[in-house]
């Protein structure tokens, strides 16, 4: 199977966008996952719902909202433009759209793995002189790590499949914002594009299957990890 330059570019762009989107989400997802797992505060259900919104909304909606916020005339975009940062019609915008769409998936995974950690373990750490930040980095984070990894893989896969928000926010520009799904969509609209679409579909399946396989491996590690904790109690 030989690939054209455009196809290779779509694959590379997809992986680049998904990687940056996942890396961008990671610290925020860990922080928010921790807050949701461990903290009680007024308005928590609202925060929770807002974070999950991209998961349940038609992807076009977050894409359009991003356009309003980060477009060149947008509330934030206008301000960023003056700093020389633009998300419009480039891969950074595609990464931002993917990050927003995959964020709830990563948060859910982080939150689940953190809420499964016995709070008394953290209590034990603090009675041994560990300040809250030290407790987080020496106990909570290492124990949640398998769950965080699984969440990142899940988020990465979601980024690979991102379509609606991306095309709404940054359009469909070859080499800039045309990721795999957008390339398949484009090919399917071109006369004689079936062969290309098929090649891209095969590629998509291969990449997604690899990500899933990886995720499964990590999930099993989480289960092993929890099994250890179960015999601990």
């Amino acid at each position, binding site marked *: 199977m030989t690939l054209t330059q455009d196809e290779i570019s779509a694959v590379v762009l997809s992986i680049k966008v998904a990687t940056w989107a996942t890396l961008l989400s990671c610290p925020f997802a860990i922080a928010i996952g921790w807050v949701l797992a461990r903290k009680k505060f007024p308005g928590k259900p609202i925060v929770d719902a807002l974070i999950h919104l991209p998961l349940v909304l038609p992807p076009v909606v977050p894409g359009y909202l991003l356009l309003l916020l980060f477009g060149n005339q947008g509330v934030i975009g206008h301000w960023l433009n003056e700093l020389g940062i633009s998300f419009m019609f480039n891969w950074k915008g595609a990464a931002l759209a993917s990050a927003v769409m995959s964020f709830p998936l990563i948060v859910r995974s982080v939150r689940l793995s953190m809420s499964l950690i*016995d709070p*008394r*373990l953290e*209590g*034990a*750490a*603090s*009675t*041994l*002189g*560990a*300040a*809250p930040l*030290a*407790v987080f980095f*020496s*106990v909570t984070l*290492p*124990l949640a790590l398998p769950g965080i990894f699984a969440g990142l893989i899940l988020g990465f896969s979601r980024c690979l499949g991102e379509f609606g928000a991306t095309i709404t926010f940054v359009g469909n520009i070859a080499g800039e914002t045309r990721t795999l799904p957008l390339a398949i969509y484009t090919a399917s609209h071109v006369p004689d594009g079936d062969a290309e679409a098929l090649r891209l579909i095969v590629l998509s399946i291969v990449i997604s299957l690899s990500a899933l396989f990886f995720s499964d491996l990590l999930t099993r590690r989480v289960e092993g990890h929890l099994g*250890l*904790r179960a*015999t*601990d*109690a």
Partner: protein
Amino acid sequence: MLDLDIHIRLKRGSFDGEMAVHITEPVSGVFGHSGSGKTTLLHCIAGLVKPDSGLMSLNGETLFDTEKGLFVPAHQRHIGLVFQDAQLFPHLSVRNNLLYGYQRLKPGQRRFELDPVVELLEIGPLLERRPGQLSGGEKQRVALGRALLYSPQLLLFDEPLAALDDRLKKQILPFLRRVRDVGIPMLYISHSMDEILYLTDTVTLVEHGRILAHGRYLDVLGQADSSELVDGLDLRNVWEVTLLENNHEQGYSVAALGQERLILPPASAVVGEVAIVSVRAAQIALSRKRIEGITIQNQLPGKILRIIHRRHGALVEIDVGVVVVAEVNGKTVEDLNLCKGDKVYCLIKAQSLDYPES
């Protein structure tokens, strides 16, 4: 040695606690049923739970004061806590668990070093293992070591034996005594008076979120007699004895208890060693005279220190060189006209004595 002053109020759901107690004894127990608030009290002392209002101070340092808006968080209190289920960090080796608190101390604050603690608790072979590979008893010993190596100014125990079966309990008890004897003040929570009496004779009674009484257990039992907590509570004498003779052929051992000789069931300890023996207070009979021609071999002469009348029966405290507590029914006290200062013999069948550590 220890000066712990507590005056706190705390409401959580249906639990409404108001606890005030001043503890100055270096080692004491907290006794109460589950749900009585004793674990909450312990977590408040450790700083893991913030009471709604009140005051708390340890050795002159204020830990909590709502009027001044002061709350010292757990990690700044230097109070160790041994949990019921050890709570070892599953992702760290036993060695790194032990060193977790130790590494956070300045060298000048370290009262204990790894090697002696490992030796004290006999956990040397476990050092490189993960907590998941340890038995319940081993975990609890590692948890003890971890707390000890943090050199706390007070060590709290939250029912450390409750999750263990009887056989394991017996294995851990000697280590608890060893930790007690290194001189760290201890507060030991349990719903088993036996465990507490094994370590100390000072106890705080907690019931329905209130402190019923605090002091030497006999005083406390007298004070709180009407409560269902102590009603019918089975008391034990726990003595340290020195083994004088092991006669395995005829199935007995002899040990020195104060100035007296005590006939015991065969001991596993070696002659010259100290052993712990215990006997239920209700299994000790009292007699005005030494009785001849009877199978009860131990007849220890002593003087009655006091008599505590309870709703059901009476506790008689007798000085035989060590203190012996016998539980008899109220009628016996009347019939024999037992009074403080009277000379009596404590009759103890050898077979009623047992070894809580083996």
